[in-house]
């Protein structure tokens, strides 16, 4: 072949993104509810229920309340969930059951554009969720502005990273039930052990090392820094890790989908 994968991506991928947006708009009122209520539930449960038990948390040299510790992490988790579940279950349904990708591939769209459109859509859902949660959490005063606005580009970066790995799994699973494996072996451990609900320092040393491989660790850490307005150069390493993760899994997702769909 004369062409490479990258030359098959034009901005026509936005047509795929637009298709998903159109479907989303049909039920946006319902889609808006989870990112609106979820942080409320967590903040109430942990703020009212757990704070008394936990007290204050030692974070980067200062004492902060437990609720303000977990609030940015909730945004990080939501960024992960929204793109990952979009490019796994939702994309898989479109690809496998609805044959939406097959129909698209009979038009001037390339496979690369279809997959890119899906991943970028996943990141868009992360962005929407993060934005709604930011508004809710801001009312409790846990986000400092204008630094907090950096959470929005962070949602896109995190969305691309988790959307890419989600699409990679969509390219390799035999059936939709098999998504349980990456969810329980990858997503759930990250949800619990990425410095989300307790500081990483509470873990044994080896577990801390392992946690640094989790993209959510870095996403959470960045979400905290942006929420508290603690911007410093070392954050570049964490951004770099998320970028690296995307640069690896984005082409891998395209490769696996190509092997799966193009026969």
């Amino acid at each position, binding site marked *: 072949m004369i062409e490479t994968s990258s030359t098959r991506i034009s901005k026509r991928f936005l047509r795929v993104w637009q298709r998903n947006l159109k479907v989303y708009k049909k039920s946006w009122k319902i889609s808006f509810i989870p990112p609106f209520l979820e942080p409320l539930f967590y903040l109430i449960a942990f703020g009212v229920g757990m704070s008394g038990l936990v007290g204050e948390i030692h974070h980067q040299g200062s004492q902060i309340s437990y609720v303000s510790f977990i609030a940015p992490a909730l945004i990080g988790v939501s960024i992960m969930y929204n793109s990952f579940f979009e490019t796994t279950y939702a994309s898989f349904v479109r690809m496998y059951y*609805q*044959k939406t990708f097959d129909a698209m591939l009979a*038009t001037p769209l390339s496979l690369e554009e279809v997959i890119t459109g899906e991943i970028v859509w996943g990141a868009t859902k992360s962005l929407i969720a993060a934005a709604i949660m930011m508004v809710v959490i801001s009312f409790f005063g846990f986000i400092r502005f204008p630094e907090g606005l950096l959470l929005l580009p962070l949602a896109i970066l995190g969305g691309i990273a988790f959307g890419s790995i989600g699409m990679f799994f969509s390219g390799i699973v035999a059936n939709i039930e098999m998504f349980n494996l990456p969810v329980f072996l990858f997503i759930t451990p990250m949800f619990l052990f990425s410095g989300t609900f307790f500081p990483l320092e509470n873990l044994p040393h080896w577990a801390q090392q392992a946690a640094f491989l989790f993209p959510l660790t870095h996403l959470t850490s960045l979400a905290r820094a942006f929420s508290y307005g603690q911007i410093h150069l070392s954050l570049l390493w964490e951004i770099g890790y998320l970028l690296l993760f995307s640069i690896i899994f984005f082409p891998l997702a395209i490769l696996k989908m190509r092997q799966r769909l193009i026969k």
Partner: protein
Amino acid sequence: MKSERGSGTQTHFSGQHIVKAENLLKKFDGFVAVNRISFQVETGKCFGILGPNGAGKTTTIRMVYGFSPMSGGSLKVFDLDISRDWRRIKSRIGVCQQENSLDPDLTVFQNLEVFARYFNIPNKEARKKAKELLDFIALDHRLNAPVTELSGGMMRRLVLARSLINHPDLLILDEPTTGLDPQSRHQIWEKLEALREQGISILLTTHYMEEASRLCDRLIIIDHGLILVEGKPEELIQQHVGKHVIEIAGPTQELRSFIQSTQFPYEDLGHRLIVYCEKSGDLYQRITRDFCKEGCLMRMATLEDVFLKLTGRELRE
């Protein structure tokens, strides 16, 4: 994003052959699905690819519309090379795939609207075209229905309308009427005939011989990835079967010997004899007079006779 198919500026392909396939080869893990076949589709005509299940029909047309990469050979559509100019080619063809790929998340109208965007057709033009097409397929009264509420026939008509959204020069149909009731099937045929009148070139696969006889100007019958015959439907019938067919149910031994002695080509299926003949009036009269009063039937030869004669009668599953 420049529209590659503006409504007013389209130029129809004027070459003699809209599709040229030479030594087209497709292998899947060592299994040869399409074995170096060559064929050409004349511009403005309807060309059929017939064959039993697994013969390589779908694989062949998937290569033509750029879905499957070829393993060998050359393939030109609109005189363009499919492996290099795939995007230009795909923007000028319409495809009806075998499996229903309508978007169940969208309504009838939105299906056309969203599909038009994949071709970079401007919204206003897309909506106008969508209305025209829904009118053409008699679905204009179901504009806002979710596609999941449509009947099988309606869905297939909508798939047809969707494949016409970009004013294609070439329409590719993979078993367009499989699974439809006779009414729906005839409706699709009428629509396809109307399209052919408009000068659109059609490439279709089917295993309904009636469909092929009615729609195709030329056709090939393929099996095991190879072309068995090529020609016009009536020529093929004439060449391979003759004019008439006499079918005899439950033939006696005497009748068998008689048929043998007449030198007419025939097939013996055990419980049934099938005799192919050019002028059959006398033979039929003799059979019904001397051998059997019932269970003997004379009819015109059809493409189905050709098909079964060439591809055999054993089941393909």
